């Protein structure tokens, strides 16, 4: 056996996704929270590629391509929102942006 089993990749993907969730919940800087979301998307991409390779279907790779495109669009719009918030509220801390918080 010369190749890595797919379960290794899937466990790594789960660990990375979990760390992304932890970062999303624990970080207080808006920009860092966006980075945690990017880590989660990357973990999902790894699972897609691993499944595509295991089943010898290339459709998974096409989905990874679309996920990357949507993530790039999301980053552009999200960072524009971050800039607007930073200009209006003079802060990057999410706990200071609580106008809609119950």
């Amino acid at each position, binding site marked *: *056996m*010369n*190749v*890595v*089993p*797919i*379960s290794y*990749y*899937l*466990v*790594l993907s*789960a*660990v*990375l996704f*979990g*760390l*992304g969730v*932890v*970062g999303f919940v*624990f*970080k*207080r*800087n808006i*920009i*860092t929270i966006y*980075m*945690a979301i*990017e*880590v989660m998307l*990357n973990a999902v*991409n*790894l699972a897609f*590629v*691993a*499944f595509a*390779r*295991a089943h010898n279907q*290339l*459709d998974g*790779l*096409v989905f*990874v*391509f*679309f996920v*990357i*495109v949507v993530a*790039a*669009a*999301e*980053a*552009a*719009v999200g*960072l*524009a929102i*971050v*800039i*607007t918030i*930073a200009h209006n509220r003079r802060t*990057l801390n999410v*706990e200071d942006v609580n106008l809609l918080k119950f």
Partner: protein
Amino acid sequence: MSVPFILFFICAAVAVLGAVLLIVAREPVHSALAVILVMMALAVLYLLLGAEFIAAVQVIVYAGAVMVLFVFVIMLLNAGVEVRTNYSKIAKYVGVPLGFFLLLEVAHWMWRSAIGTTVANGVGAVNSNAVDTAELSKLLFRDYLFPFEVTSILVLIAIVGALVLAKRDE
């Protein structure tokens, strides 16, 4: 231990290290560098899985374009050290163990499931196909042509939306 195994474990360790650094780093720039570390490690893993095109796109689009955008915004807003707030006691003593439990359970069931027996045919496999990118482009521009075109509209809307949002009205 063959070469793919060693490479996999090195890259997995680097990726997990980068994700942990993202969480513990207090400067946003350090977090950005940690995320770039994760993305580069994942690009090597994609190469190991035989997905050359995805690995190249990962490096160019993710580690290149998206993270440069992040670093630009960090510099533009002069983001300093993150303020630590006191978390609630419940989050610390119940949330963290429960989160680890969930992580272990997901990993355990992925390990136990039937898909775990499947072997990923990447580098070092017998039927490692070298025409991967050509097949991928055929699929992308024939079967997935309509989603591909819709994505272009999505990117256009994202550009316009980012411009409208970032515009400072005097």
